[in-house]
């Protein structure tokens, strides 16, 4: 299975019936494809939609119905629209249950860096800072190491932060890790084909192995 597909499928299992969920651009958006049929969630787009549906067909395309990535989308039954100020009231106000975002780095305290690389890439934070601070649960969807093999799960983030102490669950192509406040990173699941040693070798942070450690199932 493709790494990104594995990550998206595993995250889909974290969602509960009735959750309000905001999916970030890229891999997080793929999560929507794998939500179990008996789990009904409302997908929120921070540009002003509650109840984002599948991508629009060519005939359905409208600039009045785009998601936060600028894609033409549809809405589900029971959807609603609102403006940006209201949307971020929902987000900061704790009315979003889960947000799924990509990350460049995460660390033992749950600090997240996902919006800039100084001197290289400064696209702006968009809604990411509000989402990780405001959502009840922050799930990070990330490949375990960078393109050149460097660990992304660190003792301390080195890049400028998006927010402090916000990550709850980290899902990678190698593992599922929970961030436990005042304790650290608890390794809960290992993807098929990897050993505990493999995972620790690719992780700069110290991993606390859960007594219930199991194989990642998707």
């Amino acid at each position, binding site marked *: 299975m493709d790494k990104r597909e594995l990550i998206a499928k595993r995250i889909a299992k974290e969602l509960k019936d009735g959750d309000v969920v905001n999916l970030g651009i890229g891999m997080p958006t793929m999560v929507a494809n794998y939500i179990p049929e008996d789990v009904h969630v409302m997908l929120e787009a921070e*540009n*002003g939609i509650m109840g984002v549906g599948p991508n629009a067909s060519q005939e359905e395309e409208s600039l*009045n119905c785009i998601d936060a990535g600028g894609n033409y989308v549809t809405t589900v039954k029971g959807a609603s*629209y609102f403006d940006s*100020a209201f949307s971020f009231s929902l987000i900061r106000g704790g009315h979003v249950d889960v947000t799924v975002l990509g990350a460049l780095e995460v660390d033992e305290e749950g600090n997240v860096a996902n919006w800039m690389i100084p001197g290289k890439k400064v696209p702006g934070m968009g809604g990411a*800072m*509000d989402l990780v*601070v405001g959502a009840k649960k922050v799930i990070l969807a990330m490949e375990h190491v960078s393109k050149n093999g460097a660990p992304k799960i660190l003792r301390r983030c080195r890049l400028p932060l998006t927010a402090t102490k916000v990550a709850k669950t980290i899902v990678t192509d190698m593992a599922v890790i929970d961030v436990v406040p005042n304790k650290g990173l608890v390794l809960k699941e290992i993807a098929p084909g990897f050993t505990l040693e493999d995972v620790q070798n690719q992780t700069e942070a110290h991993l606390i192995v859960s007594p219930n450690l199991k194989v990642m199932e998707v």
Partner: protein
Amino acid sequence: MKSKLLSAKEAVEKVKDGDAIMVGGFLAGGHPEHLVNALLETNSAKDLTVISNDTGTKDLSIFQLVKSGRVKRIFASYIGSNPETGRLMMSGEAEVKLFPQGTLAEKIRSGGAGLGGVLTPVGLGTIVEEGKEKLEIQGKEYLLEMPLKANVAFIKADKADEAGNLIIRGSSRNFNIVMATAADYVIAEVNEIVPIGEIEPNHVNVPGVLVNAIVKVG
């Protein structure tokens, strides 16, 4: 009552050297394409400050505005879709200030709502807090974000009546509603104009009292 119906050229004459202009829209959704075009083609005002969520994408007129050399300051949340904004920031040709998207919306809302700013937890512990006052309220820390106002706002709506009451559809509401409260002179670009009384009051997204000029396109 003086008619609010103007040509794009007449409406954008309001913009003077050194003005701050708000431009509604989220990427291509709800972007007042024709008003920005008119500003480029019929008005030579320079040293402008542009306040926009994302400064658009390459195929929008706001991209050309950013590129025109007439913009000295940009306030935005996400600029990854407009590489020209990033280039101006890196080269120092323009001052680019980035804010979390919800913070940008609230700065504009507080500007338009007569508030002295807003207190948000978003940005704490990141470079966003640099130079900003922090306050502790009921045991929690917040950043003080100051209100934002403009001389002129360009917004986009689907339908207006002759009094300027606006209907903005779907996800195009985004920053268009809040910006209508925060500028001295508000210009609405609309697809359709109907006589006063034709819009059901329940359907109005922006009350006409906020709108100074209506420009019909298409």
